[in-house]
């Protein structure tokens, strides 16, 4: 077991005997395999164990944190998915014109900047100088739905920036491909109005790859959440894992990482199912 848990909790000045007693009472002096079997056999029954630091069951911490993170991720996605797709469409309809260059280059440069850098700049602009938005995502007790969203706009912005570039780029290249396809030319030649061609023929085909990209960004989002939640002091799964890692609180760390793994797998599965619903050509399990 890396690091001494008793030492991490009691501090460097504590007596070695006190550290040993604490390690014994937490069961940390047992062999690793015994500890692991103990943990995993309880975990599958829904018992995530007891936190070393908080001396309380882990499950409520993880569930609360996951709920908070999902709220933040949802605010970010609600902002970025429509705007990213719209940006990609506008860029594709104006290929190589200035507006396309601005969207493509702007999206690309926003994607490569670390979240805490853009986060700090947003905090300075909107939180400190303009004073429009709160700089920490800690809302007052019993805050309503809209107040919570108000507190989450600033933390969602750095995530928005990173995701915007990816989604806009996919939507743009999908659109360009679909605009160039034979069925689009046929639709135009048979006299359909441009609006109908775009809505009925181009968009439906163009946006399919974008959906996959949105789903694969869940993995990125989890890494991004660790940073953003720390920066904005938000009690989400990312900051929970971060605090647990620093304090060597293994039950919370293990439960948190496993929860993230489950969320990631579910998100990927949902994306695959959604993709086959939207794209009849690859619908699985049906005989031709």
């Amino acid at each position, binding site marked *: 077991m*890396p*690091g001494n848990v008793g030492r991490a909790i009691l501090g460097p000045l504590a007596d070695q005997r006190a550290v040993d007693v604490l390690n014994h009472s937490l069961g940390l002096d047992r062999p690793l395999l015994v500890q692991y079997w103990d943990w995993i056999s309880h975990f599958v029954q829904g018992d995530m164990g007891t936190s070393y630091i908080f001396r309380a069951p882990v499950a409520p911490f993880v569930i609360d944190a996951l709920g908070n993170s999902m709220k933040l991720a949802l605010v970010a996605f609600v902002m970025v998915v429509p705007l990213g797709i719209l940006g990609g469409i506008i860029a594709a309809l104006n290929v190589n014109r200035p507006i396309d260059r601005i969207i493509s280059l702007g999206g*690309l*440069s926003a994607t*490569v*900047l*670390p*979240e*805490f*850098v853009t986060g*700090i*700049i947003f*905090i*300075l602009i909107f*939180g*400190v*100088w303009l004073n429009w938005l709160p*700089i*920490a995502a800690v809302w007052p007790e019993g805050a309503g739905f809209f107040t919570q969203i108000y507190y989450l706009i600033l933390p969602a912005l750095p995530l928005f920036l990173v995701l915007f570039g990816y989604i806009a780029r996919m939507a743009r290249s999908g659109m360009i491909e679909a605009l160039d396809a034979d069925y689009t030319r046929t639709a135009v030649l048979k006299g359909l109005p441009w609006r109908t061609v775009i809505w009925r023929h181009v968009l439906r085909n163009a946006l399919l790859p974008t959906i996959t990209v949105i789903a694969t960004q869940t*993995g*990125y989002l*989890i*890494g*991004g959440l*660790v*940073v953003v939640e*720390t*920066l904005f002091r938000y009690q989400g799964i990312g900051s929970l*894992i*971060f605090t647990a*890692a*620093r304090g*060597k609180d293994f039950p919370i*760390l293990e439960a948190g*990482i496993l929860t*993230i793994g489950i969320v*990631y797998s579910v998100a990927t599965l949902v994306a695959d199912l959604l993709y086959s619903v939207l794209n009849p050509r690859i619908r699985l399990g049906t005989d031709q």
Partner: protein
Amino acid sequence: MTAIDVKQPELPAANANRSPVTEVLISLSRSGSFLTGLVILLFWIVCALFGEHFTPYDPLADDIINALMPPSADNWFGTDQLGRDVFSRVIVGSRDILTVAPLATLLATVAGTTLGLFTGYFRGLVDDIISRILEAFMAIPVVIVALLAIVALGTSKSTVIIVIGLSFAPIIARTVRSAVLSERELDYVAAAQLRRESALHTMFVEILPNVIPPILVETTVRLGYAIFAVATLSFMGFGIQPPSPDWGLSISSNYGMIGGGFWWTVLFDALAIASLVIGVNLVADGVQGALND
């Protein structure tokens, strides 16, 4: 006028004699984004190497009486909570990130190229097993891997280099593998095999020189992401440790006071990271454009 008429037919001939390396260099020197990125990158490299000789103050010298002073003629970027000159710290702050990120990228390139050559050359079972393991690695976000590695191995610069290097290796391996898959069907590989060259010789002496361009592109792109990752990890308190004037570290130790309006303690570090990341990505963009022509 006749001079022009004589000179023009010579140009194609001169082009034909140029080596591929010269061609790439010429194309790079004409790329605006590459040159802009190169200037930014060189500026920070010079700061990292010689910064301490031209900073107005010692970047590590405390001066508590003059703590948290706003930007002025004496301290262009103000002072931080220990009274250290922010301008001097920003200038020298490029040193750690410009050591750790390139080393991590180098490790990723060496490991990734080796894995890519093996999986692409042997295919079959070797490829299947290694590729599935690499895919599993790629599914985990770097920040999470780093978090776990730091719990297990402790905080140090070498941990960060290893974590980022090994997290990026699968991505480079995938690029190299697909390049090797098309190279190994070419006649020169068959000739080497007929000469009974060993597999190692064929991979590293015959194939490797021919897959250098995609490796070079992937390496410059990865360097951008490595700087992203190193900055993020030092902001999280992993890797680079105080009192280093590292940018990410400075932001993490000063942003707690941002509500008090001490914007100069974080803004310049943030802009420095942003400029370095964008500079490296412009270089990567230029390299990609020059090599894909």
